[in-house]
C-alpha cells in the first residue's frame, strides 16, 4: 500500500524533503512505516528527531493521522492514508 508522509512546521528543518511517498506491505503497521522511512531517508534525517540506531523518532515527535495521534506501533495503516510528522517545542 501507499502512504503519504508529510513533514510539516518546525519538523521541516530536520528532514531533507517535505513529504515521502512510502510503499508498504498490505496490513503494514506504524512500526513498518518507521522501518521503511529509515530505508528511504534515515541517514539524512537529523538525529535531533530521529534515533538512527532504533529507526524511531527521538524526543517530542508525533505521528498524526486525520483520526488523531498514532502512538501504538502496532497500529495498522490503511491504503492511501496521509500521515503528518510533527515535532513540538517543549520549552523550559
Amino acid at each position, binding site marked *: 500500500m501507499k502512504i503519504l508522509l508529510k513533514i510539516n512546521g518546525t519538523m521541516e528543518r530536520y528532514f531533507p524533503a517535505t513529504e515521502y511517498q512510502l510503499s508498504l506491505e498490505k496490513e503494514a503497521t506504524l512500526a513498518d512505516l518507521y522501518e521503511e522511512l529509515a530505508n528511504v531517508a534515515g541517514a539524512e534525517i537529523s538525529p535531533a528527531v530521529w534515533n538512527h540506531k532504533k529507526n524511531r523518532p527521538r524526543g517530542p515527535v508525533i505521528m498524526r493521522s486525520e483520526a488523531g495521534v498514532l502512538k501504538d506501533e502496532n497500529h495498522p495503516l490503511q491504503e492511501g492514508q496521509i500521515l503528518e510528522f510533527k515535532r513540538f517545542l*517543549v520549552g523550559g
Partner: protein
Amino acid sequence: MSLRGFWLEDDKMINGYSGQILRVNLSTKTCTAEPIDAVKARKFIGGAGYGAEILYSELKAGIDPLGPENKLVFATSPLTCNVVAGGGSITVCFKSPLTGAWGESRCGSNFGPDLRRAGYDFIVVEGKSDVPVYLAIANGEARLQDATNLVAKDVYEKSDLVEAAETINGKKPTVMCIGPAGEELVLFASIMARDRAAGRNGGGAVMGSKNILAISVSGTMKPNHASAEGFRAATKEAIKTVKESEMRDGFNEFGTIGDMPANDEDGDWPTKNWRSNSWGEGAALFDDFQDKNLVKAKGCYSGCPIGCARVCEVKEGKYKTPVHEGGEYESISVFTSSLMNRNMDTAVHCDYLCNKWGIDTISAGATISFAMECYENGILSEADVDGIDLTWGNSEALPAMLEKIVFRRGVGDILADGVRKAAEKLGGGSEKFAIHVKGLEGPAHDPRSGKVLGIAYGTANRGMCHIHPLEGMAFDRGKMDWGMKAHGARDPETVDRWDEKGKGADCALLQRALILPDILSTCKFMSYAGLDPEHWAQMLAESTGWDIDAKELIQVGERVHNIQRLFNVREGLRRKDDMLPERVLSVPEFGSYKDEKDCVISDYEALLDEYYEACGWDVETGVPRKSKLQELGLEDYK
C-alpha cells in the same frame, strides 16, 4: 472550614482570595494578619504582581538584600489551587542578593494551594531573627518555632523534620526550606519544596540571612468564588484544553529534557560557557538519560494535567544517586554542554546535589563553567582550586566544585557570589567569561537560535532569564504565539528566526502575556499547552466576580512588568544594564553555526531602541515615561 467572615467583615471580603496577608516580623517574633487591599488586588492581582507592589512600597532603594530591611513575599493568586491547570505554584519575590535588583522565583508543589488552605494569600517575611526559627502555619494560625535542630541539615532532612513536627491528624504539611547553601548565604541559594525549587535570584540566601530555615503550611480552608459553578466550569474547560493539546503529550512523555537534541541542532544549546550554541552531543546524552536514568514522569503538584517532571536516578557506580525529581532541561544542560561533560550520570548526580543542598542548578553550573574557563586561562591555578582538575569535560570535578561553592570552601567562597562578583574579585580579564545580565547567570537557551530571546534576556527584570517573563525562542523557533495573535502579535509562522526588525516590538507585546502566569502564580507551561489570556481571564472573573477580560488582564501584565522595572530603576539600573554579554553577540567559535553570521544579533542597540519605544520607555535611559505610567495607573509609584 470557610474563610468567609473568619478575619474580615463580610462586606470587605474579596471573592477568590483567602483575604489575608500574613506578616511575619522575625525581629519582634510576631505574626499578624492583614487584609488584602481590594484596589491593589484588582490592579496587581497576585504572585509577582501584588508581590512587586508590596516590595516597591515597603522597601527603600539601596537596602542590603541580606540585611533585615529586605523582605520575602510568598505570593499566590485566586488561581492558585489544585483544580486550576498550573495552580500548584508559589511565587517568591524579594530584592535579589545576586543582582541587587528585582528578584522572583516560581516553584511548583502543593505549597501555594496549601498556603491558601492555611488561610493566607501572601506571607511577608521581614526583619531578622536572632536565633534559627521556622514558621508553621495551619488553619489561620501562625507561629515561629525554634529551629536549632534544623541547622546545617540538608533539604531532605529539614523537610522530614518539619513535616514530622507539624503533622496534624496524620496529614503532613507542605514544607519549603533552605539547605546548607542558604545558611551559608550562597548568593544563588534556592528555596526548596523537596525537589521543586524556587531556584533563581538567591531567595534562599535571603531566608538564610533572616535566620528562617523553613515554612510549613497546612489547612482545610477554602476561599469563596464569586460563582462556584462558573469557576468549576471555567477550570474544567481549561483542563480539557490542556489535556487535548498535543503539546501536553510532548511535555508528559519527554519532559523539558526532550528538547535537548533539537536545541543542540538548532543552535539553542549554549556550549563551553557560551563559546558555541551547539555541540552535537545532545541526542546521545538525551538517549543516555532516557535509557539509564529516567524512572517515570510525574506532576510537580497534585492534579497537574501535564506531568512534565521527571523522576530519575543513577542506579549504580561512582555517582549512584537515589530516586528523586530532577532531569529538567536547564539543570541537565548546564551540567553537560556548558561544561563539555559527556557523562549523564554526573549531570543527574549534580542536579540531585543542588536539590539536596538548596542551590540553583543554572547558576551553579554556569559558575563552574566560568571557573573552568578561568582555569584554562591561568586565572585560577591548580593550587587555587585545591588540586581539582578543572579541565573542560572532567566530570569528576563537578561534585567537588559544587561542594566547595555550597560550603564556601576555598575558591568556592568566591564563586558562591556568582560570576559577576567572582570576575570582579579574580580580575585578569575574567569578566569576559562571566556570562550574565544584571548579575544573573545565563540559562541553557541561546539567542543565536532566534532573536526575540536576545531582547528578552536583556530586558527581563530578574536578569538573564529564559522564562520570566518570556521564552523568546518558543516564538521565533517554536512558532508559538500563546494566543497573542488575537491581541496584535505577529504570526510567528511568518517570522524568520534570524530576522531582527520587529523583534523588539514582538518581545514587548509577548512579555505582557507571558508574565501572566507569574502574576497568577500558575505554571507557564499551561500557556504552551493551549491556555490563552482568555482562559486565564475567564477563570479569574468567575473566581473574583470581576468584570475582567483578556484585554484588561494583558494590561495588568504590562503594569506589573513596569512596576518591576520601576523597582530596578529605583536601584539605579538603566539601559546599560539591559546589554547582553559580548560573547552572546559573537559568532560561535565552533559547532554547526561557527560560520553562520546571520545567527548573531547584528544591531542589539537598534533592537533595544525598538523595544523601549514599544514599551513606552525613554529610549536613552530605558526608564518608563510618565505618560506610560499614567496610562497604567502607576503615576504614584515614583
